[in-house]
């Protein structure tokens, strides 16, 4: 289990006191920065039906997907069963594959953190 450094971390991106946990792992720290810069704008709020990592029900079935599939969906875009649309690289074409993958890793870790926090029931 990844060590949690700051629980209700905020300052880094000036995002206010939001529950975007910071993990001690360097790769995840980098992923968090990418995530806050591009992905949070939708995934933090459910814009366009983007699944929110703080909501276990929206992520329980995704964290168990193969990581390669999640990478592929984040890099190349993905349509959900309901025709909701995850755009290629979150619409930020300047991001490298490595940056998008790090953001995916961070989001998965964040989702797992909340799934653990709330246990099996919701």
């Amino acid at each position: 289990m990844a060590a949690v450094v700051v629980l209700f971390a905020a300052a880094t991106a000036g995002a206010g006191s939001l529950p975007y946990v910071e993990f001690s792992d360097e790769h995840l720290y980098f992923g968090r920065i990418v995530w806050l810069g591009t992905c949070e704008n939708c995934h933090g709020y459910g814009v366009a039906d983007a699944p929110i990592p703080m909501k276990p029900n929206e992520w329980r079935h995704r964290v168990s997907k193969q990581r390669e599939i999640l990478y592929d969906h984040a890099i190349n875009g993905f349509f959900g069963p309901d025709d909701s649309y995850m755009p290629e690289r979150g619409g930020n074409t300047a991001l490298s594959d490595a940056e998008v993958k790090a953001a995916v890793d961070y989001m998965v870790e964040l989702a797992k953190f909340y799934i653990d926090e709330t246990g099996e029931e919701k």
Partner: protein
Amino acid sequence: MKLLSKSLVTLGVMATLGGLSVAVAADVGSTPSITPKAMADALHLVMDSDRAVYTKKIVNRLVKKEKVIKASEHFEDDKALVLPAQMFRFGSELAAKRAADMPDVNFNYSLQSMWPVNKQNAPKTEAEKAGLKFVAENKGENYYAEETLGGKKYFTAIYADTAVAPVCVSCHNDHKDSPKRDFKLGDVMGGVVIRIPL
């Protein structure tokens, strides 16, 4: 002007206390009443759901997934689908036209922005200006105010309108008349303004 800002402040306080108790005008002598806030929220829920369905089931599916047609601002020339924002605007124009013949239907709605491609869609009243700023700065929250316009009192609700697809961002960032060109996906681009007379 002074009066208006005062009522805005009062209303802000009332709203945070959890809603208003003013009933919508005593129309058709109906007994059950609904607060203007509940009515505005319900109207917005319908508009927003229809809009989401159009965006997902028509635009995303046919343009992005099946790639059988384009969506374009110049949909007639391009023989393309209307953009989701245009779909919304056409609906509001038609509703305004039809409501003119219905004395019991007293409300209007519009899509506005602090950064409008078409200047006509810039906020005009104090509540519109304050509300569009508020929803842009407080993502996920709505804005409610009472305002007096031409001696009449109105309840005005403003809901954020967000860039949900790359086409929203590219169209606004690339448009020659757009005053803002650094939108990102997920940014608040403007707001839906619903106004109900009290």
